[in-house]
């Protein structure tokens, strides 16, 4: 497998409002826990060092010690408990109407991403990649079409499960421009490991430009080669599962390919979206991500290359 990581990501390096609140709680927690741990380890290691000491503390002293220790434990837990409840409340605080509403549906093993339009805003459909404008609250409705998945982009927020019989929601508010990786966090079967997600946070202007391009139907192929590719795509049965808006391809069980060339990865974060990788993926997806739902289709080399050329034109 090739390197598809764009940036390192960490729970402790927040790029979103919610992740930031969680890190503040983490900082408090780690100090309290470290102090407790230091005491216990000091008294345990001290035992090994005091071997020759004549006599130990009296029962009276120990009883007082036990009371003090218990109170200290209770106090530490109380501080953490109160801080946790406050953070929990802050995370759940409504921030009014989010200007952006998405629906993310988990499938074995990829993410269907829809931007819900409304008014004069058209809808947009993509997969395995979410683009967000910086400093803008966004509401993401979560659902699953099969088993339980979990939506996790550590730089932005904690997890939220996608449960088939229980629609739910997560809110994000990115605060930094960058590319942030996410991954399914609930074991969802064979290819749970290769169910990645990319979140790209950009400036408002860049986001709007991207959105406008995405809302448009697929570009007409300009070369004969790509046109042949489109024909091969339809003939080979790809259209049964995939959608390419503006063409006859309108399958709904696999990722929308209308603007596949604008995406960074293939196979839900499995491969970088490069010509060679794309062609390898179409030729034998079962080799790269065994068990995934895309069958290997018997294509002759010219058709394969034509399809690749066509898909590469779908900016």
């Amino acid at each position, binding site marked *: *497998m*090739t*390197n598809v990581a764009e940036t*390192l*990501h*960490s*729970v*402790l390096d927040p790029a979103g409002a919610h992740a930031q*609140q969680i890190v503040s*709680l*983490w900082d408090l*927690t780690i100090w309290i*826990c470290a102090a407790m741990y230091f005491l*216990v*380890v000091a*008294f*345990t290691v001290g*035992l*090994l060092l005091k*071997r020759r000491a004549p006599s*130990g503390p009296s*029962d009276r002293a*120990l009883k007082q*010690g*036990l009371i003090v220790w*218990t109170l200290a*434990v*209770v106090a530490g*837990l109380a501080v953490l*408990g109160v801080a*946790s*409840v406050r*953070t*929990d409340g802050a*995370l*759940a605080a409504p921030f009014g109407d989010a200007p952006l509403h998405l629906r993310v549906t988990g499938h*074995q093993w990829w993410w269907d991403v829809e931007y819900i339009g409304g008014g004069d805003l058209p809808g947009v459909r993509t997969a395995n990649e979410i683009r967000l404008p910086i400093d803008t609250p966004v509401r993401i409705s979560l659902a699953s079409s*099969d*088993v*339980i998945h*979990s939506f996790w982009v*550590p730089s932005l*927020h*904690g*997890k939220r499960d996608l*449960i*088939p*019989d*229980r629609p*739910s929601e997560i809110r994000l508010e990115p605060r930094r421009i960058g590319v942030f*990786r996410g*991954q*399914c*966090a*609930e*074991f969802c*079967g*064979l290819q749970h*490991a290769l169910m990645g997600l990319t979140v790209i946070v950009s400036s408002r202007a860049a986001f709007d430009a991207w959105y406008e391009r995405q809302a448009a139907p697929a570009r007409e192929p300009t070369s004969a080669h790509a046109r042949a590719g489109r024909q091969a795509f339809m003939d080979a049965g790809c259209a049964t599962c995939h959608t390419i808006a503006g063409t006859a391809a309108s399958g709904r069980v696999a990722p929308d390919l209308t603007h596949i060339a604008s995406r960074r990865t293939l196979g839900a974060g499995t491969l970088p979206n490069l010509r060679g990788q794309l062609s390898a993926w179409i030729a034998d997806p079962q080799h790269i991500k*065994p068990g995934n739902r895309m069958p290997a289709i018997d294509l002759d080399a010219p058709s394969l290359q034509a399809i690749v050329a066509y898909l590469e034109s779908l900016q």
Partner: protein
Amino acid sequence: MSAVDDPWLDPAQAQARLARTWGSLPGWWGALATVDHKRIGRRYLVTAFTFFALGGMLALGMRMQLAQAGSTLVGPDLYRQLFTVHSTTMMFLFAVPVMQGIAIYTVPLMAGTRTLAFPRLSAFSYWVYLLGGAMLWLAFLVDAGPDTGWFSYTPLAESQFSPGKRVDIWAQMVTFTEVSALAVAVSLVTTIVKQRAPGMTLARMPLHLWATLITSLMVVFAMPAVMLATALLIMDRLVGTQFFAPSGGGDSLLWQHMFWFFGHPEVYIIFLPALGMVSTVVETFTRRRIFGYPVMVLALAMTALFAFGLWVHHMYATGLPRLGNTFFMGASMIIAIPSGVQIFCWLATLWQGRPRFATPLMYMLGFIVVFVLGGLTGVMLASVPLDLQLHDSFFVVAHFHYVLIGGAVFPLIGALYYWWPKLTGRMPGERAGQWSFWLLFIGFNVTFFPQHLLGLAGMPRRVYTYAQGLGWDGLNLLSTAGSIVIGMSVLVTAWNLLRSLRRGEHAPPNPWDAGTLEWATASPPPTWNFAHQPVATDAHPLWRERESLPCMSGLALDKRELLLTSGVEARPDVRETSPGPSIWPLATALAVAALFVGSIYTPWAVVIGALPVTVTLIGWFWPKSLREDE
């Protein structure tokens, strides 16, 4: 003819009579029909440690695969079987049975009685456990190992997403081990409540017995939940009920509630017996009674109680109502208090005394250092906001290995060194013991500490591979290196103990100068445990009565007679006859196993299979023409 134990009887003659009455039948038939709690306990230990070694090998397989990004050593299908069979083996076939095995062996000796309350039931439970474990591993060896995790979340575990028999095998294996665990728990509770030596009041009862009693009560309340859950799951898969299938109107989260209602207490069912072991070893190697004994007992009871109120902390990310989450967060944090109190009491006892840092005690000190870190990360996971980030990441993998290996395996291996002379009559080597401890301590921390950092760096659990450049490579390699050191420690312990069987020094009855009753008899003890019924004059009778231990006479020698005592004060109550060797427990176990295995394939197995079970149970309970008890 005097058939009772009377003080004027020639000791050799009394011994011979006891041997005739309590002996097993000869040969392989005798081995299959035995009801001797020590033999059954040893079998439990051998079987459980075999599963531990097997499960450990699967863990090494996973670590080898994760050592490098994009490794192709283990494919996705094998990997999901590896982690499912590893965790299932460790939880159901190692941790719970090994603790019960130790209890089956030590409880009657420590309580000062001749055998367990229901010896045939414990023979039966061993066979059921063995057959269930064998089924899981045979399935794994023919590539039919369960593959949906030890928690088997629905709807993934429904037949729509997991066709084949893998999940059914998992679910039935759970049924096997839970039947077995319940049977043992009933036997242990009864033994501890009704068979303690006269004078062993509740206030004098060793903490190991307290821990076993409380754990066994937890088993009685927790295990039925998971048996019910797996039974419903099997029905979903076998006869098309839809309890957990959203497509048929079922509720997928219901499974999580039922599973964790068992699953969280399960952790404490593994952990509480270990606390009893720590107290036992700390007392013996400081030659003092534990500081704050009543507080320790209350702490155990409080832990057990709260353990039933935390299960939702596995489910914060499912989006349950916030008020509910807050309640479970509170309970999950409060349970740290009794653990903190116990840590204080052990350290206080050690600081008061002059500890001998022999291998068993070193393991208990290792327990404190490792377990407390796991407890603190547990507090972090109890916090809803932190858990949303840490849940299902490698941070959690690190956390529960700190609490389960730190909290249960360290004390267990320490206890194994401690009771080894009693079990085998041989002393384990001290030098190799110290080596095994330091290897485990270092190997463990090198393996699992980096996993905290991996979780914080966003690495989810249960992934068979990961891409390069995520910052996970180095930590994973380090973790794999550490796992090899853990393997070495286990090998050193195995070599040390097995070698002692041939070359070890012969153990006297009380090699550690311990104070509890199991050390009042030979090492290893005769099948009848004690020549005379001992009497407990103190929490540590052997320390108080240095010269000779008071005992009671009057129990029959020509039949398997036990003394039952009152539950609180342990006053002599009645004499009761204990059943002798029988093949029926094995026959019943085989019939039950046939029913369970058959029901993986057809619901009719429940109907047809009930017949042999009925027949064997009739055989088991057929009234004997024994003389009535007087």
